[in-house]
Every structure is written in structure tokens, then in C-alpha cells.
């Protein structure tokens, strides 16, 4: 990997509780520009919460966030601005069912950025072609398969021209045969130099596309390593136990 590594997104001492439940414990993390970071861990380890805190869909009780060295303040204006720079892809797609596929993709550019419709339409067509759904522009989400929905959701997020893409278990609610198409799109994105944070159970994707893998357990980052290291010789025994459980036995 000869990717440029510069401090780009930084989290300092993040703490998050749900009531009495301490879900994230003093998490600090740097993400470099053009890095593909994969977050793994058992369910309940806090990996999705970490991703959602990054986009402020969850408000952390403590912690500082920096984008490009600038502190992100916890007010609506700052958050709306920062969110425009972070694309988010959800486990359950969350496409807008009352809009056609192309309108879904145009929604951000037109109604957040204020681009003219014609320009937004061009962007949307290009992105739909890119995710292999150029022919579905005028259908409604309900007509699409899960894999197609998720690729539209990726196009919708990309339409804002974000600087980071966050993926929250993007293939977890897909039928197994549809997972490949979505991962392929994500892999291409990473190769093009998109900064990505991906929470996933797809170890194949982590091996192929990640620059760095972090293993979360009980609200902390227990181990971080390159994919080669993580999957061949993890140091912590909990990491070993988790990977043994999740990786196919050879």
C-alpha cells in the first residue's frame, strides 16, 4: 500500500452510554485520508455505535472530533455541514420509498447543496451507471432487490461528493447471493481512493480491501493491525477466539 497517510479524521476520548450501559469507553482513533478502515467485532461490541457517533446520528456524551484538524462543534450548523462531507450507508438501506431511484440520488445535491436539477440529474445518472443500475433510474425502491437497493443507497451517499464514506453493516440484511455485487462496488470505491470506514462481518472484504482492521470488544478497540496480521496472527486471545468463530474452517 502506497497510500497517502495524513491525519484527516480524528476522534479523541469518545465516551458513550445508553442509560447505565457504557457502550464506548475512551475511544481514540485517527483515520487517514484515502484509508480503508474495517471495524470488526461481535454484536454489542460498540462498532456500529462508533460509526454512528462519527456521523453524529448518536450523540456521544464525551469526546472530541476533528475533521482536517478542525474541531467539529456540536451545533446544528456544524453538524449539517460535516454530515455533507460524510456519506452514510445503512444496514437497512433507508431509501426514500416515495421517490424514484434517480430522485433518491438527486435528493442531496438538489435539496441540501442546492444544485440545479439538471446538473444533479447528470451526477445521479453517472453514479447509477457506476453502481451498475443505470437502467433502474425511473423505478421505485420497492421494485428493487436488496442488493440493488443498497447500491442505490451508495450512489445516493456518493452524490453529495463526500470525503469519507461510512458503511454500517451494508451487507448484513442481504441474501448471500446479493452480497458480492455490493462489496464489489465498495472495493472499487476504496481502490479509487475514497476514505472509508466499514463495519462489517465480511472478512473476505476486510482481507481484500482494508488498509487497517480494528477489532472492537466491549466498547474498546482491543486490537488494530493490517489485515494480513489480523487474520494470520492476531495477538489478543479474544481476537483469536472471535476470528476462529467467524472465519470458515479450512
Amino acid at each position, binding site marked *: 500500500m502506497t497510500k497517502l497517510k495524513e491525519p484527516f479524521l480524528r476522534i479523541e476520548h469518545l465516551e458513550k452510554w445508553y442509560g447505565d450501559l457504557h457502550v464506548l469507553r475512551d475511544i481514540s482513533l485517527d483515520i487517514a485520508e484515502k484509508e480503508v478502515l474495517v471495524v470488526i467485532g461481535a454484536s454489542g461490541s460498540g462498532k456500529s455505535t462508533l460509526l454512528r457517533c462519527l456521523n453524529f446520528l448518536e450523540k456521544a456524551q464525551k469526546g472530541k472530533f476533528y475533521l482536517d484538524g478542525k474541531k467539529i462543534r456540536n451545533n446544528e450548523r456544524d453538524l*449539517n455541514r460535516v*454530515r455533507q462531507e460524510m456519506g452514510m450507508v445503512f444496514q437497512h438501506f433507508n*431509501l426514500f420509498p416515495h421517490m424514484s431511484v434517480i430522485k433518491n440520488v438527486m435528493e442531496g445535491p438538489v435539496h441540501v447543496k442546492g444544485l440545479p436539477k439538471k446538473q444533479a440529474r447528470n451526477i445521479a445518472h453517472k453514479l447509477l451507471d457506476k453502481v451498475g443500475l443505470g437502467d433502474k433510474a425511473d423505478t421505485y425502491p420497492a421494485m428493487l432487490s436488496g442488493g440493488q437497493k443498497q447500491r442505490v443507497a451508495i450512489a445516493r451517499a456518493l452524490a453529495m461528493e463526500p470525503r469519507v464514506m461510512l458503511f454500517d453493516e451494508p451487507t448484513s440484511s442481504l441474501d448471500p447471493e446479493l452480497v458480492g455485487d455490493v462489496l464489489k462496488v465498495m472495493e472499487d470505491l476504496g481502490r479509487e481512493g475514497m476514505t472509508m470506514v466499514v463495519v462489517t462481518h465480511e472478512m473476505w472484504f476486510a482481507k481484500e480491501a482494508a488498509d487497517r482492521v480494528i477489532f472492537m470488544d466491549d466498547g474498546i478497540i482491543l486490537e488494530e493491525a493490517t489485515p494480513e496480521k489480523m487474520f494470520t496472527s492476531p495477538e489478543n486471545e479474544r481476537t483469536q477466539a472471535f476470528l476462529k468463530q467467524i472465519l470458515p474452517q479450512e
Partner: protein
Amino acid sequence: MSTIIPWNLAVIPERFFFFRDAAFYTLQITTLGILAGLIIGLIVAFAKIAKNPILSNLAAGYIFIIRGTPLLLQLFIIYYGMTTVVTIPPFPSAVIALGIHNGAYIAEVFRGSIISIDYGQMEAARSLGMPHSRAMRRIVLPQAFKRAVPPLGNQFIIALKDSSLASTIAVPELLLRGRQLGSSSFMYMEMLIIVAIWYLIMTSVLTYAVHRVEKRLRVSDRDQT
């Protein structure tokens, strides 16, 4: 035939259009009452969802009082009860009462349909950088309105029939006209049947209209095949 049926049914077609003006009154009270109800309902629904406890408690109190008392009582309070402060003529009294009454029910319809929209929709909109109010307007409300159509249609039909209570405060709508013509001609049943037919025509048209709207809104919902 007249030996079997004790009423002179032949007068029904003859006198049917004696009720045209009365039907127009019914239609006016209902339409204006529903419009007022929709505006009140929308405001109260948002107030009840609001995080501000004063607003949400006010809305809850309003719904509690209006849904917990009869429409006829509300009508009398506005028409008779308010006279010490202000005298409101029969027609506006009926519209106000129907509006306030339906406002409470419609508020619950709107509130229910708004909170039934998956929270992921709001999150997806916010993740694009959209402010909360715009996400509500562009993403949540259009879907919520769609879900509100069937219960709203139901409420409109109830409002149409409830407008007959205005007969008690001398608004010359269908039911009052039926009673007047019935007593002057001694043909109560015949006149009341005419009234029933007018109501049935109006409720049928309303039902059909709601059905059409539902069908049009369903375009995006077709399941995958």
C-alpha cells in the same frame, strides 16, 4: 302497492330537490369544518410530538377534553355557552364546533402516521446533511400523509354525518329541513328517506374520492415481483 306500504313513496322523487339548498348547507359546514380540522389537527399533532413539554401537554390536554366530551355538548357550549361573551350565529358556530372536534381526531391521525414512519428515514435524510425541519417536510411528511389518507377519509365521512347536529341550533341543513318538511306535510318518513338518500350520495362520493386518492398514492408501493 300503497295498501302494503303505509307511506306515499311517490313523493320521494317529486320532492327530492326541495332539499338542494339544505344539502348545500350540509356540504358547506362539512367542508369548512374539515378544513379547520385539518389545520388544527396538523398544528396539534406537531405540538404533541414536540420536545417542549408545555406544547405537548397543551396538545394532550386539548385532545383529552375534545375526545372525552360529546360533539353536541361542544356545539352547545359555542352557540349557547359563549353568549355571555360573544354571540356566534348558528352557521359559524357549527363550523367552529366541527372544526375543533375534528381537529382533535385528525391530530391523532397525523401524529400516528408521522411516528409510524421508520426512524431510519429521518436518519438517512440527516446523514445527507439535511436540517431536521427540511427532512421532516421532504422525507417524513409525504410518507406520513400517504398513510394518513385512509383514516382521514374515515374521519371526513364521520364529519359529514356529524354535521347533522347543526340542526339542533337552527342551521337549515339536511336533517332540519327533513324535520320541517316532514311536520308541515305529515310525511315524516318520506322526507327522512329523502334526507337519507342525500347523505348516502354524499358519503358515496366521498368514499369514492378517498379510494381514488389512495390508489394514486400507491404508485411507489408496488411490491417487488
